[in-house]
C-alpha cells in the first residue's frame, strides 16, 4: 500500500503530502479496481469510433516521369548479361542472313519468330527470381504494378529495337512490301503475346507464360505457311515473297493486328491490376 501512496504523491514535498491527508482509501480503491482487458469486439468498436480521428497514412502518390526513368534504370542490374547477349545475337544473325542472296526464308523466319523473342523476354524478366529478393521487393514503397511495368518497358524497348531493325532490312530487300503495315502486323502479335505472357506469369507463373504464347504463335505461323506454300506456285513467286506481300497488304491482317494491339494493351493493364491486388490488402 505504501508503494501505491508513494506513486500518488510522487513529486510532492512533505508539506504538500500532509495537506492531502490520508490517501490509503484512495490508493486501495485504485489498486483493487482492475480494468478488464478489452475483448476483440470492444477493440473493433473503439477503433471504428476513433477511425475518423486517426492519422490517415499517406496514400501512394503517382510516380513522376523522372522517377520512372530511375526505376527502369535500376532494373538493369537484374538482367544477366546472357539476356542482352542473346538479343544481340539474334540481331547479328538476322543481319548476316539478310545479306545472303536467295535465302529469303531465313529472314522471314526471324521476323515471324521475333514476337516470340518478346514473349521469351517477358518470361525471362519475370522468372521466379530468388525468393529473398522477391520478398524484399514486396516490402518496399514501390508497388508491384510499378515494378512490373518498369521491367516490361525495358524488355519491350530492347526487343522492339531489334525487330524494327530486322523489318527495316527486309523492306530494303523488297520495296514492294509496305513497311508501316508490316511493322503493325508484327507489333500486334508482339503486344498480344507479350500481354499474354505477362498475364499468365502474374496468374500462373513463368512456365505457362513461356508455353502458351509460343504454342499460339507457332500454330499461327504453321497455318500461314501452309497457305503460302499452296499459293506461291500459282503466283510465280517464292513462298516468302508471297507471304510478306500478303501480310503487308492484307486488310484483315491489318485489322487483326490492330485488335491484337488493343488486346495486348488490355492484358498488360490487367496484369498490373492482378499484381497489385495482393499488395494492397490481405482481404
Amino acid at each position, binding site marked *: 500500500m505504501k508503494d501505491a501512496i508513494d506513486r500518488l504523491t510522487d513529486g510532492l514535498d512533505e508539506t504538500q503530502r500532509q495537506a492531502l491527508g490520508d490517501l490509503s482509501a484512495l490508493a486501495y480503491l485504485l489498486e483493487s479496481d482492475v480494468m478488464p482487458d478489452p475483448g476483440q469486439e470492444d477493440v473493433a468498436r473503439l477503433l471504428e469510433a*476513433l477511425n475518423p480521428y486517426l492519422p490517415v497514412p*499517406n496514400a501512394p502518390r503517382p510516380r513522376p516521369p523522372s522517377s520512372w526513368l530511375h526505376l527502369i534504370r535500376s532494373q538493369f542490374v537484374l538482367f544477366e548479361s546472357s539476356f542482352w547477349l542473346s538479343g544481340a545475337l539474334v540481331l547479328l544473325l538476322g543481319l548476316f542472313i539478310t545479306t545472303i542472296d536467295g535465302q529469303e526464308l531465313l529472314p522471314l523466319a526471324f521476323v515471324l519468330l521475333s514476337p516470340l523473342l518478346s514473349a521469351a523476354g517477358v518470361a525471362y524478366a519475370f522468372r521466379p527470381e530468388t525468393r529473398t529478393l522477391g520478398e524484399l521487393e514486396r516490402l518496399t514503397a514501390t508497388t508491384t504494378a510499378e515494378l512490373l511495368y518498369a521491367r516490361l518497358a525495358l524488355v519491350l524497348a530492347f526487343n522492339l529495337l531489334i525487330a524494327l531493325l530486322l523489318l527495316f532490312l527486309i523492306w530494303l530487300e523488297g520495296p514492294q512490301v509496305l513497311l508501316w503495315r508490316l511493322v503493325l502486323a508484327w507489333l500486334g502479335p508482339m503486344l498480344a503475346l507479350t500481354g499474354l505472357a505477362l498475364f499468365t506469369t502474374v496468374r500462373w507463373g513463368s512456365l505457362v507464360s513461356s508455353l502458351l504464347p509460343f504454342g499460339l504463335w507457332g500454330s499461327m505461323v504453321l497455318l500461314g505457311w501452309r497457305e503460302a506454300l499452296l499459293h506461291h506456285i500459282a503466283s510465280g513467286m517464292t513462298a516468302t515473297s508471297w507471304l510478306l506481300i500478303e501480310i503487308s497488304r492484307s486488310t484483315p491482317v491489318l485489322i487483326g493486328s490492330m485488335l491484337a494491339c488493343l488486346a495486348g494493351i488490355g492484358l498488360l493493364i490487367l496484369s498490373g491490376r492482378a499484381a497489385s491486388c495482393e499488395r494492397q490488402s*490481405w482481404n
Partner: protein
Amino acid sequence: MELRIQGLSKSYGSQVALRDVTLKLMPGTVALLGPNGSGKTTLLRCLASLLKPDNGGLWFNGLPYTQNFPWLRGQLGYVPQELDFPHNLTPRQLLEYLGTLKNISESGQVDYLLSALGLKSVADRPFGRLSGGQIRLTGIAQAFLGKPSLLLLDELTRGLDVEERERVFALARKSSSGRLIVFSTHDPPDVERFTEQAIVLQQGRVIFSGKTEDLHHHIPGYHF
C-alpha cells in the same frame, strides 16, 4: 509507435504454427526465443505482412494491417531467415536497387551501412563469391535502409563471427531510438547483451513475455 497482435493463429495444413498469440509491443528491442519449430519465423513473417494469418489481427500504430499494406510496407525493414540473393549481384548493387524501390533519396545511406557492417571491401564482389556471414550482413544492411520504424530480423546473428556480431549490435543500438526491433535468435548471449525484453514461443504459443532477467524464474533452463 505501437505494434499490437491480437489472437493471431496460423496453420500449415494440419500443423499449427501459431496459436492465439496476443502481444503488445512498444519501441525498443525485443528478442524472440523458442526451440526450432516453435513459430518464431511464422510470427515474424506475419508481422512483415508476408504471411496472412488464419485468425486474429495486427495493428501498427492503431491502424489495421489488412487495409494499409503500401503504407505499412514503407515503414518496415525485414531480414528473412534464409538469404538467397542472385549470384551475379553485388552487395552495393543490391542495396542501391532496394534503395531505389524504397524511394530513398539520401545517397550516403548505402555507403554508411556498408561501412558500419564492415562490407566496404567486398561491396563490389558478386554474392556468388561471398561468405555466408557477408551475405547475412548485406541482408541486415538492406533492412536498415530508409530508417524503418519497425525492424524484423529473423535469426539475426546466424553464421556471424564475434566481430561481425559486434558490428550488427553496434548498428542496431545506434538506430534503436524510437523504433521497434524484433529479432529471433538461438543464442542466449545475444539476448543478454542486446535487449532486456524477450518473448518465448513454444509450439506456437507465447509462454513468456517480459524482462529477460525474469525469464529463468518462469522457464527453467533459460539462464543468462
